[in-house]
């Protein structure tokens, strides 16, 4: 191990020329597993794989390999992207292309491996082969690059994800890792690095789209001895998991990105602010930082350049608002995570009053690639004002889900129809939601919109951190808006009144819209109408007067749902009807007398005793008593319960 470390440091990291000697290249190929004499099994090991059962798959593979093919190497890699294919497994036989298989649960391991090693490939679970130069083709097997899920993607940031063991720094170095960082600290000044990033046109990927190079320059010129870099890996929007996937699959690139960014602003301390609950990702990042320190890439006087850097991980203690810059700084200072008034912006007065740059994980992951290939290369894809790519977490009701990366300017329609492969179970699309709990809805009429900061902003849509949630007809929009409002209400920090009270009142009104009133004639109805009339006013006041982004964007889901699904709101309010049959309070059930056998199953389970009847005779439901819980519907074996 020590020999390899010395070899890689001397012959790769500190090697001045861009082309390596043929002897070094051989070692690199071996590290990349391009020349192996044994079969290699790659098993994805991210959180989504573990949830799908990859740990049991791993032990089954180990048992099989020990018994039958002891020379086989097993490598735990990060996620490749498609979450619905987990546990995903990739097998490389010596000299042949890699084969990808999906959903390999414990029981499927033995037949699959038996087939592979005896040249009888199970085509049911096969996704395809990955074409690589110098490898033998598998005849009659499609290439995964040609599958629509991968073909429409442009993988730059995710290029390493799922390809190497994220716990091994050697494998990352063999993939050109850390050379951009060493080039930067040895040959460029702070300003030059800032200039390169500014010329590339990289914009902050956390939603605002602020030019990264400009931010760095402002901090650099803020005039202070010490500065800080904070990597915001907080990502706590419901339904967003891009940062975690990148950290689990390629932590070294983030470490390199942080190192370059810290150098560019002259910071000697970088802090990664980590999301609670991503324990797996945190361990991997910690390991990456430790091994980078071991290689001398971090610490005092890095490779005799006179530059010092240390990276610290801090776990967030659990508050959504901490993702806001000033609240994040307050948390790091040991105070309550409450936002502060801006200006002064953190770039001039941030952590402990020092200039601080806060960048998102995806932004920093782009940096090493730009330093390696130059700003023109980065500008060669994407749109003019938003160059590069965007990583999105596709979830919800699409046929495919997972983490994808697309070129800026790709339309929502392409993502939806080709990458996500349409809607599950042949249902129709209702909307796509971008930007998490404070994002907006995009309906079927607007699917031609491209993913681009400026175009989206013009339409009043925030891109957010990369959640792309597909919603189908079985979802009630009013209920979904209520869910987001409930989340925002519980996460509002309570510092400013418009947000604290506004989210509470909006939630209250939305709840009254979907609740069944005890008596429709009483003042309840009047109260409901009065409340509904005020919803829009409250939303606009919150938008204008809240202190931070949380309050300003909290009404967004409501406002955009109202814009596109007004008739659904009106149905709930006036007709007391929910077309998706989700809102419990508005559901009522009745029993089909022809189908009911009088088995008494529903009557015995009804929590409010609203079902009456005589045994072996058709039963009936008293509508006034029914609370619409649907237990009778679930329990009936004769499908005699009808939803009204």
């Amino acid at each position, binding site marked *: 191990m020590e020999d390899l470390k010395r070899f890689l440091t001397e012959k790769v990291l500190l090697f001045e020329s861009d082309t390596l000697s043929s002897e070094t290249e051989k070692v690199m190929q071996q590290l990349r597993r391009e020349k192996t004499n044994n079969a290699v099994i790659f098993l994805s090991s991210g959180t989504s794989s573990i949830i799908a059962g990859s740990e049991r798959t791993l032990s089954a593979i180990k048992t099989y390999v020990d018994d039958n093919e002891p020379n086989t190497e097993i490598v735990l890699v990060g996620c490749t992207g498609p979450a619905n294919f987990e546990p995903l497994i990739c097998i490389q036989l010596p000299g042949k292309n890699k084969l990808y298989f999906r959903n390999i649960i414990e029981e499927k391991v033995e037949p699959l491996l038996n087939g592979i090693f005896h040249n009888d490939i199970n085509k049911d679970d096969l996704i395809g082969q990955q074409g690589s130069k110098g490898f033998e083709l598998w005849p009659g097997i499609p290439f995964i690059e040609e599958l629509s899920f991968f073909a429409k993607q442009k993988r730059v940031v995710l290029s390493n994800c799922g390809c190497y063991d994220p716990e091994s720094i050697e494998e990352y170095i063999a993939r050109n890792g850390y050379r951009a960082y060493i080039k930067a600290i040895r040959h460029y000044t702070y300003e030059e690095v800032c200039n390169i990033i500014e010329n590339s046109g990289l914009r902050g990927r956390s939603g605002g789209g602020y030019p990264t190079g400009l931010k760095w320059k402002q901090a650099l010129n803020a005039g202070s001895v010490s500065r800080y870099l904070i990597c915001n890996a907080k990502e*706590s929007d419901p339904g967003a998991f891009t940062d*975690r996937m990148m950290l689990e699959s390629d932590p070294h690139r983030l470490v390199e990105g942080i190192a370059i960014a810290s150098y560019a602003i002259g910071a000697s301390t970088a802090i990664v602010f980590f999301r609670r609950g991503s324990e797996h990702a945190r361990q991997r990042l910690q390991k990456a930082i430790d091994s980078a320190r071991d290689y001398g890439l971090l610490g005092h006087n890095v490779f005799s350049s006179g530059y010092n850097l240390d990276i610290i991980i801090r776990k967030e*203690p659990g508050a959504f608002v901490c993702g806001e810059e000033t609240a994040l700084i307050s948390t790091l200072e*040991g105070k309550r995570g409450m936002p502060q008034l801006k200006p002064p912006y953190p770039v001039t007065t941030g952590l402990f009053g020092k200039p601080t740059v806060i960048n998102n994980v995806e932004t920093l992951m782009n940096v090493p690639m730009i330093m390696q290939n130059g700003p023109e290369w980065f500008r060669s894809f994407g749109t003019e004002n938003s160059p590069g790519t965007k990583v999105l977490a596709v979830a*919800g009701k699409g046929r495919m889900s997972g983490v994808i990366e697309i070129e800026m300017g790709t339309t929502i329609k392409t993502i939806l129809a080709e990458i996500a492969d349409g809607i599950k179970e042949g249902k129709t699309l209702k909307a796509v939601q971008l930007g998490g709990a404070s994002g907006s809805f995009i309906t079927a009429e607007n699917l031609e919109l491209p993913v681009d900061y400026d175009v989206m902003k013009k339409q009043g849509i925030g891109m957010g951190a990369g959640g792309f949630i597909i919603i189908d007809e079985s979802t009630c929009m009013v209920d979904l808006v209520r869910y987001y409002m409930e989340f925002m209400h519980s996460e509002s920090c309570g510092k400013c009144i418009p947000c604290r009270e506004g989210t509470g009142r909006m939630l209250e009104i939305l709840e009254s819209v979907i609740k069944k009133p005890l008596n429709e004639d009483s003042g309840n109805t009047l109260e409901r109408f009065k409340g509904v009339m005020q919803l829009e006013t409250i939303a606009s006041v919150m938008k204008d007067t809240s202190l931070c982004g949380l309050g300003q964007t909290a009404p967004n889901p409501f406002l955009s749902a109202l814009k596109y699904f007004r008739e659904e709101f009106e149905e709930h309010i006036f007709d007391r009807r929910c077309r998706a049959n989700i809102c419990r309070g508005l559901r009522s059930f009745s029993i089909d007398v022809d189908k009911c056998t009088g088995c008494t199953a529903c009557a015995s389970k009804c929590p409010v005793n609203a079902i009456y009847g005589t045994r072996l005779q058709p039963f009936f439901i008293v509508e006034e008593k029914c609370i619409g819980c649907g237990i009778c519907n679930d329990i009936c074996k004769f499908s005699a319960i009808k939803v009204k």
Partner: protein
Amino acid sequence: MSTDIEIILKKYKPGRREELIPLLQEIQEDSGHLSEEAIVRVGEFVGLSTTKIYGLATFYDQFRFIPAGKVHITICHGTSCFLNSSQAVINKIKEETGVLAGQTSRDGIFSYDIVTCMGGCNNGPVMRVNDQYHHYVKPDQIPELIKKLRYLIEND
């Protein structure tokens, strides 16, 4: 108990407020919750009043002031799980365990938390029981699971 806190405190420097949250996090990881004595001791150590420490700890979701149950359940209530009706699962768990999120049942067996995304968006609703993941959870599986876990704990 108090000796454990002293061991943890040795790793930190007194009077540094920026280390307060990591310190509280470490105490919680070690003992499962923040006890009254722990908060008082941390207050003395950092040089802040106990009310300030308590005010800070209650602001954040992570800190608990009562020990977690022997079976700790974490349920995902992210958008994707919500679309796959995680609310029904949460209601069922509430009904079966008889406690609210963040609380611990009187016999000290069950406690549960609701989180916003666990990363199994395709397999929702997702639930974690201690270290074991369950996916595609249906509300009607809950009573049997709770019964089984209760039996295992009581007969252990």
